[in-house]
């Protein structure tokens, strides 16, 4: 991401990169000199020179933009001028598209331009889950409302599901992985190293200079990640960011390791979202990220605690009743705060992408808020609680609905989630 710089800066940068490739004593070629034809650089050296410049300048598309142009310094400066002009126009266009009240405090806004989601390929009925955990058949369906759960196949992992969702998101707007400035990953089950974001970095073949960051928060992870991405874009340090959530609970919360009342609720899934500083590449799907707010209601911290025990098992403390009460109360409060802060009536939203501890609680939450349950995409009912990816899968479903031509005027989207702690967060998206 290039912040607007003066001409002297670019001249110095180009000269320095050229000498790194051609040698410190090499004379600087004339501006229009064809660097390859005149032998100043061979084709390998030319690409290497461009890669150095891309890395130093932050203009990641420099090489592509120089395709079908004379390989000369003049062409390079021309492309730099063009990208700098585009950057300026982008900022002005983006700010102009915002409500007047937002302009003075917005440097550059983040737009969500595409999404993807993936769930484990193996569908298991809730009765089979009951049996596996030694519970009476029908318990999960009756108590939690879960009909089936998506489990990862043996070859599916957080990386594979996350990459699958990421590919969907990138391909749907023909965004090349090389365009990404950051990958921000979150999930509550990936425990090894390299971290999930680092593995995604390799799997997606992004540029080496693309940063990779993992954020925590368990089920609140998606909102944390979106808020971080928004901050990076607003500060001008990134133009294109991929946010990925991925959770494979079925390998951690196994029968014999945890109680079925807890472990049986969870499924495996992933989601991915592409954020850009401008929405021009996919105006039909662009959603502007509104404000995010967060907090931690420590009084409920004891309702759920998960820790490694010395014998290698998971030590899970799960007070289902207390957690359900806290979840409903807090989610309702968060969503009412979203309504208040955004000035958007909850009745007008296209959908609510919220955490879904289980389908029963979603139904209860909808009732408390006076909203039809259809506003909450059915994720937990068919796939189980997907951890950080529940909110992501729900958001993806709402965005897919927004793309449906039958959806005449897609409304705003509310986001709300919770994490152990009891962490909470909310935010909203409005149509760009």
């Amino acid at each position, binding site marked *: 991401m290039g912040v607007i710089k003066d001409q002297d800066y670019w001249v110095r940068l180009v000269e320095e990169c050229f000498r*790194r490739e051609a040698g410190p004593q090499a004379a600087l070629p004339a501006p229009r000199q064809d660097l390859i034809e005149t032998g100043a650089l061979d084709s390998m050296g030319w*690409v290497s020179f461009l890669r*150095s410049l891309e890395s130093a300048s932050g203009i990641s598309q420099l090489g592509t933009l120089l395709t*079908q142009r004379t*390989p000369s310094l003049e062409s390079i400066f021309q492309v730099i001028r063009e990208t700098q002009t585009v950057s300026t126009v982008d900022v002005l266009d983006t700010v102009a598209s915002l409500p007047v009240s937002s302009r003075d405090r917005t440097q550059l806004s983040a737009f969500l331009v595409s999404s993807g989601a993936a769930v484990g390929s193996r569908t298991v009925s809730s009765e089979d889950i009951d049996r596996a955990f030694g519970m009476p058949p029908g318990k999960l369906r009756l108590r939690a409302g879960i009909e089936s759960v998506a489990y990862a196949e043996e070859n599916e992992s957080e990386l594979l599901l996350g990459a699958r969702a990421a590919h969907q998101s990138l391909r749907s707007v023909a965004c*090349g992985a090389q365009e990404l400035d950051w990958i921000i990953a979150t999930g509550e089950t990936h425990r090894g190293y390299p971290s999930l974001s680092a593995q995604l970095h*390799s799997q997606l073949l992004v540029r080496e200079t693309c940063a990779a960051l993992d954020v925590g928060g368990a089920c609140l992870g998606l909102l944390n990640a979106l808020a971080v991405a928004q901050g990076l874009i607003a500060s001008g340090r990134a133009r294109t960011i991929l946010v990925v959530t991925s959770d494979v609970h079925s390998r951690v919360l196994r029968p014999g390791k945890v109680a079925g009342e807890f472990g049986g609720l969870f499924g495996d899934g992933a989601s991915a979202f592409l954020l850009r500083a401008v929405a021009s590449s996919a105006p039909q799907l662009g959603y502007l990220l509104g404000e995010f707010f967060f907090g931690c209601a420590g009084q409920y911290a004891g309702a759920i605690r998960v820790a490694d025990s010395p014998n290698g098992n998971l030590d899970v403390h799960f007070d289902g009743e207390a957690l359900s009460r806290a979840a409903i109360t807090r989610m309702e409060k968060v969503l009412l705060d979203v309504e208040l802060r955004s000035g958007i009536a909850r009745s007008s939203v296209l959908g609510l992408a919220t955490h879904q501890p289980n389908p029963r609680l979603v139904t209860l939450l909808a009732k408390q808020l006076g909203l039809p349950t259809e506003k909450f995409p059915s994720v937990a009912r068919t796939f189980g609680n997907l951890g950080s990816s529940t909110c992501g899968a729900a958001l993806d479903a709402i965005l897919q609905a927004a793309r449906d031509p039958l959806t005449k005027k897609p409304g705003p989207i509310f986001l709300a989630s919770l994490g152990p702690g009891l962490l909470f967060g909310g935010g909203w998206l409005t149509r760009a």
Partner: protein
Amino acid sequence: MTKLLITEITRMGPAFCVIGLQREKEKIRSVRPVTATANSWLHFPYHRGDVLQCDLAPFSGSKPHIEDRVSTRGFQKESAVPEPEVVTFLRKAEMAESLRELFGCALHENRSGGAFAKPPEATRSVCGTVTQNLRLELCGDELRATLVLSSGEVLRDLPVVDRDWRNFVDAALAENRGANRVPRLERFLNSQFHYKVLSCPHHFIRLGLTRPYHELCWLMLDTLIPLPKHEWLEEF
């Protein structure tokens, strides 16, 4: 007389380098026919999958290009093998799953990330591998590939020298294709390319080493299967 299944045709400047598979008892190995005076062919009217009859004489090519053989007379096409079958044979030839196995030596990278092998260390100059993901991009008129091997190791910015893919890109950028040719091609490479190539059941690549240049052999993407189809040009 030797039967050679043509698997590589690479564009190196104005000439072509050719590699084929030769069966030797139970083994299948790569052989690179060269002329007595040059490593490449200015004219090579054959295609991948062609089975050619030729006469090859041993040649003490310098390491790591141990596959070199001198062709002592012209080629004669005998038959052709479909693309999936070519891959079946390629999988029986030189194969690797990790960077270290590719050319039997450690690989190094220069300041800007280009990968190379040191000629005395490398034990061969061509090898097949399976990729978890692969991306092509244009950079200043050059086609470059970045890929991740099944070992999870990444190779960045390899020059793509596959004749058919280079020709495809040239055709996509031809003036008679109208406006915005570069962004259109870029869009194809970022979207449909993935569906067409990575989801192809016989997707396969072969990597090669350049001749020593300033005492280093640089990695290249020699072959990317499936080969591009002309009708894909109508899709973007």
